């Protein structure tokens, strides 16, 4: 059904409530945050109204530059790993019987119901020296003695990938299940081995979905706050952790606000990018 674009002010009525909620709980707090981010910190106190870009200038210090780069790189690596596991997984999932598909999807949804805290502590136990998986490998004589895998970069990655993987599959699943299986079969009858056909037919057709999934997981991982603290060392802390650190422990609200504004803007930028990508339809049409 095609609707007419709104003509009178009254036509906008249905979206008045959501718009009000969005203004009240997002635009207003964000505005306050933007305001605070240009305020001046009072040493030993709180902050006072001013207009200064000093808080933003601090991004340029090597320490915060490093944290920023680390956060972006971590989010990118988590997205890539999720896609590397998620794409073959989802493709194979859509080729099996309907009943098994449902079972797998329910299992993945169940992971979403776990709180981040539980995931964090479960992995910190699983990767610990005293009670972790390495003990099992010792039992299998694969390792000599148990090792502590946490805290560390690998542990942070494991936790984040574990948490983001269900989202990855849920975003990929609809597109893969709509993919006409005869495209793969056609490629095979034309001389492509199944692996090659997956590479030069399925992946190119799916490239928009892959990009959209990358962006969604990237934003998700960029906001990671709890897992880097539970599973990582201070050098593995992300921008979100620093925001908390500055706001609560260092009482530097203006600088914390500046970092938060930066995070929100970069997320919005990526969401905008993904909308732009998904709106370009009709491959090859001018």
């Amino acid at each position, binding site marked *: 059904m095609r609707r007419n674009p709104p003509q009178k002010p009254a036509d906008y009525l249905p979206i008045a409530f959501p718009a009000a909620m969005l203004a009240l709980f997002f635009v207003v707090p964000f505005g306050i945050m933007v305001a605070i981010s240009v305020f001046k910190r009072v040493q030993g106190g709180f902050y006072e109204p001013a207009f200064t870009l000093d808080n933003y200038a601090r991004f340029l210090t090597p320490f915060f530059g490093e944290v920023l780069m680390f956060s972006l790189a971590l989010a990118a690596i988590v997205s890539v790993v999720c896609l590397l596991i998620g794409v073959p997984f989802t493709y194979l999932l859509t080729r099996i019987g309907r009943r098994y598909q449902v079972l797998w999807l329910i299992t993945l949804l169940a992971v979403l119901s776990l709180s981040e805290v539980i995931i964090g502590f479960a992995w910190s136990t699983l990767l610990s020296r005293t009670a972790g998986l390495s003990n099992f490998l010792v039992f299998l004589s694969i390792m000599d003695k148990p090792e502590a895998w946490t805290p560390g970069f690998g542990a942070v990655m494991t936790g984040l990938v574990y948490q983001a993987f269900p989202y990855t599959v849920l975003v990929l699943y609809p597109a893969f299940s709509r993919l006409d299986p*005869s495209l793969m079969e056609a490629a095979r*009858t034309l001389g492509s081995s199944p692996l090659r056909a997956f590479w030069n037919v399925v992946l190119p057709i799916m490239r928009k979905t892959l990009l959209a999934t990358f962006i969604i997981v990237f934003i998700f991982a960029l906001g990671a706050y709890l897992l880097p603290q539970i599973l990582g060392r201070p050098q593995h802390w992300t921008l979100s952790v620093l925001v908390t650190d500055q706001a609560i422990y260092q009482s530097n609200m203006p600088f914390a606000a500046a970092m938060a504004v930066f995070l929100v803007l970069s997320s919005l930028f990526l969401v905008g990018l993904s909308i732009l990508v998904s709106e370009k339809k009709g491959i090859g049409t001018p």
Partner: protein
Amino acid sequence: MSGLQLVDITKRYGAVTAVDGISLEIEDGAFVCLLGPSGCGKTTLLRMIAGLEDPSAGDISLQGARINDMPAHKRNLGMVFQSLALFPHLTIGENIAYPLKIRGNSRADCEARVRDLLDMVQLPGIENRSTAQLSGGQRQRVAIARALAVSPQLFLLDEPLSALDAKLREAMQVELRQLQQRLGITTIVVTHDQREAMSMSDKIVVMSNGKVEQMAAPIEAYKKPASPFVADFLGQANLIRVQKAESGAALSGGRVPGLSLGPRNEALISIRPEDVVIKGGGEGPLPADVVFIREMGATVEVHLDAGADRIIALAPPKRDGGLKVGARVSIDLPADACVVFDSREAV
């Protein structure tokens, strides 16, 4: 041994037998249609020939070599899918060049071959268009060109024309047949459209419930159907139960003189509507009442009740108005136009 040979091919999905012990021989250069109602196993059979499904039992051989275990991408065949399966991320030229690139042909060779193929399907110069810019008939031709790009040993088509409108379908049938004759390529088409099968192929294979009912030249299968199923599926047929009678066979409402039922006491006969002869006047071996008349343009379809049997006749239209509903006529079922089956053979 040349050509394609299927020996006792069976395909089971759990408890369901989709293809049930089919043996066939298809000569090189033949145009064969696999014809049957939906669910008869014809597509499954084609997919096994293509290597997209593994047979549960039996052997498939091409030019004397068993190809059961050869994966689809090594079989060197061209297949046109019902959905056409053109790659949406590639241009027309790239679609057709896909099998050539896979085989490592140079860019210049690919481009030259694509041009030849597009000329062959009468769509020159559309290399750079996207698949979304083509009409149904054009997409059809591109799919055919792509399947023939590497001069395959076998050309397989799964309901290739089902998405086209009636007029375009007729035109494509002629074109496909001419193309096949020019290239001399062994071609197997799956269709449920008996007109399509009859008009295109050298041989038709009529299938039902996973079995072959008859393999014959189209006109032979039409004139001498091997079973009541074939008689009914290919065109229209009157299937009538008859008993043995003195010098012929007896229907519920009359007789067919001179029709021999062989050793049978009871039989099922099949006669085509165009072979039924209607005579004026109610006297004769088989009197009947006209109950319905349908003008078809080139012919008139007349429904007649002869005793308990409903018989359909096709006649050329008479200028004077001809028959009227309710008229009493006499009909003649020429013995040489009747095909006799055992009466227990169900349709």
